């Protein structure tokens, strides 16, 4: 079982500790700091650290480390999942999870699943069907791997004790799914519909996965030409973004990010649209493109200045892509209808679809 919990900021200060059993001195965190200093990146800190007497299991979220101390065998996932749930709870309460927020706040009351006799003047239920496209595109532009991760997030403000039923036009699409505990799994198994008494407020009703077996539409392509020349230390970069399978919608909020190799000192690039920044410390090049129109394809070109003397990089860096398409669920999932039982009033119902990039990577 979890013995103690420490929350550590990126400066390495333990700013909060909590002990469930006997008090373990915070010096146990030194083992964690050792591991932290060995890792180049916060995400490289191993989730489980073995020390002579304790096991430190940690998660890294929102720039904070949540380090729990265990003394004996237990499922690491149990602890990890729990810590993430703690962070989620903080986010629920505070809207965010930062050091100052945690320090400032008190939360003293339980949030019940549903308060008894909830009452709203406007009875509303909103559902967001969010789909994230995960993809790896190889340098020739063909799709190595693509899949869709979908979520149905709800914000339900309904009086009384409503019993909701949601049906889909094409429930067969789902390869795999997981549900909020309020969903009656038996009915899903037999009828493929979601039947549930919603908790009050916002929550994630369902997540689903449409896997590698189905064909996934990739909405954007990136034409790229990056070259690092030997010699005087300059390279060239030329990127063009264009829509591919967008089902008639515009792709918005497009953002390209490239982690440049360490030899790159600076970038002199001009975009035909949007804004470009390059951070010489993290060597992150990011191009905020915005909206992509078929008529005028956004383009970014220019030169890269390389460290003189050092050999040019062996390989080109990968491009991470972000975008959103509103009013569209790229998999074709559609909510058929939503019915409410158990209460007499007529609620206002709304479903919104949105597609965005998940882990979308273009190899160059």
């Amino acid at each position, binding site marked *: 079982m979890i013995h103690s*919990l420490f929350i550590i900021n990126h400066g390495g200060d333990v700013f909060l500790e909590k002990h469930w059993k006997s008090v373990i001195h915070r010096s146990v965190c030194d083992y964690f700091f050792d591991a932290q200093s060995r890792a180049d990146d916060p995400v490289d800190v191993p989730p489980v650290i073995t020390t002579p007497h304790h096991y430190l299991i940690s998660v890294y979220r929102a720039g904070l480390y949540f380090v729990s101390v265990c003394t004996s065998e237990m499922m690491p996932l149990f602890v990890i999942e729990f810590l993430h749930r703690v962070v989620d709870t903080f986010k629920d309460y505070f809207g965010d999870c930062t050091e100052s927020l945690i320090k400032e706040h008190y939360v003293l009351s339980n949030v019940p699943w549903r308060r008894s006799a909830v009452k709203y003047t406007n009875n509303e239920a909103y559902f967001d069907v969010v789909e994230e496209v995960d993809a790896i595109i190889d340098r020739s532009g063909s799709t190595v791997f693509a899949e869709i991760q979908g979520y149905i997030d709800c914000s339900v403000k309904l009086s009384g004790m409503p019993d909701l039923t949601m049906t889909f036009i094409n429930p067969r699409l789902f390869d795999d799914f997981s549900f909020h505990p309020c969903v009656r799994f038996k009915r899903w198994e037999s009828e493929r519909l979601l039947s549930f008494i919603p908790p009050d407020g916002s929550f994630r009703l369902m997540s689903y996965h449409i896997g590698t077996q189905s064909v996934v539409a990739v909405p954007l392509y990136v034409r790229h030409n990056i070259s690092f020349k030997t010699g005087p230390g300059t390279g060239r970069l030329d990127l063009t973004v264009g829509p591919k399978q967008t089902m008639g919608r515009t792709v918005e909020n497009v953002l390209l990010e490239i982690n440049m190799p360490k030899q790159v000192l600076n970038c002199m690039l001009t975009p035909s649209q949007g804004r470009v920044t390059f951070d010489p410390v993290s060597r992150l090049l990011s191009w905020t493109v915005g909206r992509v129109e078929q008529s005028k394809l956004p383009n970014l070109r220019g030169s890269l200045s390389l460290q003189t003397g050092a050999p040019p990089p062996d390989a080109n860096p990968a491009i991470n892509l972000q975008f959103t398409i509103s009013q569209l669920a790229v998999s074709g999932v559609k909510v058929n209808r939503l019915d409410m039982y158990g209460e007499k009033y007529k609620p206002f119902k709304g479903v919104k679809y949105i597609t965005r990039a998940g882990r979308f990577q273009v190899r160059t």
Partner: protein
Amino acid sequence: MWDPKMLPRIAPMATSVGAAGFGADVRSGMAAGGGGGGGDIEYGNEATPAGFFSADFKRHDDLKQMLDSSKDNLKLEAMKRIIGMVAKGRDASDLFPAVVKNVVSKNIEVKKLVYTYLVRYAEEKQDLALLSISTFQRALKDPNQLIRANALRVLSSIRVPVIVPIMMLAINDSVVDMSPYVRKTAAHAIPKLYSLDPDQKEELVTVIEKLLADRTTLVVGSAVMAFEEVCPERIDLVHKNFRKLCNVLVDIEEWGQVIIINMLTHYARTQFIDPNLQDGPGDQPERPFYDDSESESESEGSDAEGQKRKPYVMDQDHALLLRSTKPLLQSRNAAVVMGVAQLYHHLAPRSEVSLVTKAMIRLLRSHREVQSVVLTCIASMTTQRKGMFDPYLKSFFVRSCDSSHIKILKLEILTNLATESSISIVLREFQTYIASHDKTFVAATIQAIGRCASNIADVTDTCLQGLVALLSNRDESVVAESVVVIKKLLQTQPGEHKEIIRHMARLVDHIKIPMARASILWLIGEYCDRIPRIAPDVLRKMAKTFINEEDIVKLQIVNLASKLCLTNPEQTELLAQYVYSLARYDPSYDLRDRVRLMRHLVFPADGPNSRLGKYARRIFMATKPAPRLESSFKDRDQFQLGSLSHYINARATGYRELASFPAEAPDPTVRNSVVPLPERPPEPALQPTRQRGFYSDSSSEDESEDSDSDSSSSGSGESSGESSSGESSSSEDAAPARNKARARAPPPTRGVSALRPPQASSSDSDEEDSDEEGSTSGSGSGSDSGSESDGSASSAAAPAAPPPAAPAPAGGGGGNSVDLLLELDSVPAPLGTELLTPSLGGLLSPVAASGAAPATAKADTIELVSAQFVPSEYRELVNPITGSGLQVRYRYTRAPHLYSAAMTSVELSFTNTTQQEMTDIHVGQKTLTAGLTLHEFAPVSLLAPGGTVGSTLGVDFRDSTHAARFDIVTGGSRTVPVSLAAPMGEILRPVTMSDDLFQRRRAQLRGMNEAGGSVTPACCPTPSDVRKLVLAAVNVAALSSDTGDNERQLRFAGQTMSSGTLVLITVGLPAADAGDGAAVTVTVNCEKMVVGNMLLKELKTQLLR
């Protein structure tokens, strides 16, 4: 299925993890942080070094003042700041006295923060912490379940060894609490008590057994957790609950599910036989999926025997377990999904394990830490079960944004998964990885290529060519890694590969990395016959650089010299001599020793024909076995999948080995429980897709297949009665039945002990001792009770036994804490044993005990006795007019109700005053105020005209005079609303105690807890009259029984039905010669002031009659 009202949204997640429950105090504790400005002030105090020392003893004075103030908001602010300090890890222990007195605060927010503080510092300030204990004890009897639970939680979190007996009692009480939430909290308290005092194990196991039998899903998860913490070896406790656990699993909160799944995995490995011993015919189509070599090697040995054996039939409980865990794969909780995955991995027939694949792949979308654990598990699974993850190969492709250990894990899995058909895709991926900037990742990729090359013969040459191409890579680490891998590969290859070796020999000139240099030198030495011209030259160069090389390189130079000297002595003998001489004076003793050995082999003292010399060639040039390139996850199998030990690949503290399947299944009938199960006839192989319909079938379907084994229970009609009276009173012989009933009496006790009338026959006396140990006297006086019955002499000594009793409040508190201690005075000394028996006093043994030895009241025990007076007159509940002909009358029988001892039993008498028959008289709708419970009377099916029928109703009034309102329905349509409120005197039960104890108890219940008054009856009553009057009105027992009429003070004792709070009544009579008009004084002492006052009122009216 999910009861939305019962589950606080956050509390469940804490529960199973939490020692201290998360619901309230963690968040307050954790989120606390000085509260804005408050924090700054306190910072300021400490930051200035000058003020630090001078004001040290005055530190926190402002906080103390705030805590002492009478305003709640100031207290709250102070507490917030203090908890903020605690959370920051700053020492706030000197505030303990100031804080702890606020434990009695009425403000719930202040109270919670004080609790949080208390739990943190109780261990350091044990004496002071004891001051607060009585508050919790009182709270444990509060009608509000949340307050009871919270009190228990905090009480059990206080790690002070002296309160162990109190905790034990509190747990014992709470386990039979009406509220499942309190029972759940009791389950959480068990591991805490166990860690505080492992000696309590035996008693705790009994408690756990009770909890495991609990039918509420809220409780079960926590009960299993307690089981796992305290007595995981007691597998026998699980048998009876196994099917229930499987059936309710889906409805349990998610953290409980994890624990239960894990426990059931262990259980199943001891109870069922290996489903893969013999593959059933149903598996046939699946076979090609699995790696051939694996399935063969595993089942080959057993197959031969298997032919002779009877075909494997899965135990239906085994099938039930698999079936009921499967829906949990859809849980949103990664730990639950992983739990099910490992259960299938360890328990399911080979063909079914792949059911978990999709869900595991889904977890890969989760947070990095989750990915890491899941990938480790998958890596380990893929060494055995390739086929499972084959279709998801692409999910393991590496992204540039993955963290490095995730990348390595994915690489491992890709390598494990690669087959002839997929190798081309895998290799193409590997190719892109080699260009990565992350050098450790590149090195791992090269090793992975090497493994693919050695595992899959088709691609060996391609890979080798690829690796050779890497030898000209600009990055040295890439080259070095390639060299090492090529070396290994060449060893496994029979071919010539002269070109490659020559290429590598050339590399020695500029490659710096020792491991690579050593590998090259070894290769040259080993295959020196293939490059006879180059090898001596390499040795020449090495001899020059020898002294600057690393140890591993030096060793290989020496090896190379020896081998060359044996194959090509003309060219190299001198060089070898030279190298040996250098090595002889090397700082490394290992090297010096080796050279000494080699010199004697290669240059034997007695010439080349010596015996050693003859064998030297065979020793050095022997064919070496090729290294096997295999997954580093191969040996992780020894650990349970998903466990901490598995993840760190080392045995963690407290790791429990997963038992190997027994050869013969143990008796499956032990799992037949009282509860009939929804079971289908056994099926040879599971076909889950077709059985979807009844996954989460709860026990509501009562097609009993077990009914033959316990016919008696089916008659009772109440499926919940685990220890229903039918069972224990049936044919089984008496002794074990008694034990059983005692051990797992469910909350509303229906066990035998409650059934036994107070005046039990003396044949029960043999049971007395054991019973007392079980429950009466958990606080430690149980063993005393027998030996100290000899009289009041020892009574003074007895209370001294529990160590931390009264003295603490007086001395330790200091000036400030005096006022808070007022309340303490009015409560019996914290450890005074007797009072602690309370709330289930009636349920368990004392009833029997008193029957055996009623007269010799033990010095320090309070014993239940039967009513000394039972009123016989009936009162009317429904008159014939309002009841349309039905008359109902009632009287209080003052006997314990059979359903629950907390209930007042009311005898009803129904009379039909009409000329028609009345049918079906039963209780209709009940409208009960908070906490009241009502046990309906048995329906009267037919009441003939003019006839009268009796029946009994039970009402738990919760120590209040609230009326129980309900409808009596006749003939299915006519309803008569009735309201039944018992006078205070009827919700008591009589107890006896020694005079001495009575006086002490009374002394402890002074002040607010004493209600007194006087009445002036018309004529001076005699003591016996008064006694009669009192007993008629109030169900108590008269003490000091046989003193005659000259006794001027009468004493009566009882306790309330529901909470068992002690009630002491003293009636003072005027002197016999005082004449008429003298006042009679009545005093009632009771912890519950309301009860006391109302009793007083009733008594006064009664005495005026």
